[in-house]
């Protein structure tokens, strides 16, 4: 494990602040009727927050390639799980 990280304490506080602002936004936006966009916006903010945590708090931004491979592979498997199952359930009424 590398213990050297190019991420400064200051950027941790910045990321923390952005995460809190995003939480506030998700919460407030949920009260506006955007139709199907409500879920899209909520998930987009959640994905953005998760990316901030992974890249900065979990140091992936400055991690070796091997860590990137594992992260991307896990997202790829998650994608297979979600896409293949959705392609079944969402198309059943076609036949």
């Amino acid at each position, binding site marked *: *494990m590398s*213990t*050297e*990280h190019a991420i400064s*304490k200051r950027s*941790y*506080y910045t990321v*923390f602040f952005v*995460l*809190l602002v995003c*939480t506030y936004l*998700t*919460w407030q936006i*949920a*009260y*506006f*009727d*955007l139709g199907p966009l*409500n*879920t899209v916006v*909520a*998930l987009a*903010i*959640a994905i953005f*927050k*998760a990316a901030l*945590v*992974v890249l*900065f*708090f*979990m*140091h992936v931004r400055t991690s070796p390639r091997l*860590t990137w491979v*594992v*992260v991307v*592979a*896990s*997202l790829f*498997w*998650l994608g297979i*799980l*979600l896409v293949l*199952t*959705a392609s079944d*359930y*969402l198309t059943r009424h076609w036949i």
Partner: protein
Amino acid sequence: MWVFLATEVLFFGGMFLTYSIYRHAYPSAFIAASREMIVWAGTINTAVLITSSLTVVLAVHAAAAGQRRALLLFLMITILLGFVFLGIKGYEYWTEFGEHHFPGRSFQFDARYAPQAEIFFSLYFMMTGLHAVHMIIGIGIMAVMFWLSWRGTITREYSSPIEISGLYWHFVDIVWIFLFPLLYLVGRHVH
């Protein structure tokens, strides 16, 4: 730890998938059931977990810099925030049991949506329950890290246990980042 977390992604991924399928099948019941969630509790808990993730990175930072006092302080705050989260979650469960929202024989809900709302609450209790189990394990790991740091096992040269434990904690935070909007905020826009 990263490989373990990859398996955890799929573990929780399966539950999010089940949630998506049922929400797609019963949108109005999910909206009705989600409106019963205690929004302030979920929002505060999101902020609590984000703050605990900050204290974890500050602990990792302190460990790598060999600052023992700061390390112990941030680990302690992290553990306390973990208990605050579980306390608020416990209050929610207590309220929901009182309102007969726990699935089972005594489940009560608006008759139009009752069977499908019961599915929502099953998913809610499974997903947040599994998350809470992860929180309890996380608090246990942080307690061990506190002990190791107290004993002086963790040094500037040997700080990777703190970093690896931190990865687990952040992962559990990320799961909550997705649980919060999907369980608490669905259908808030319906008046």
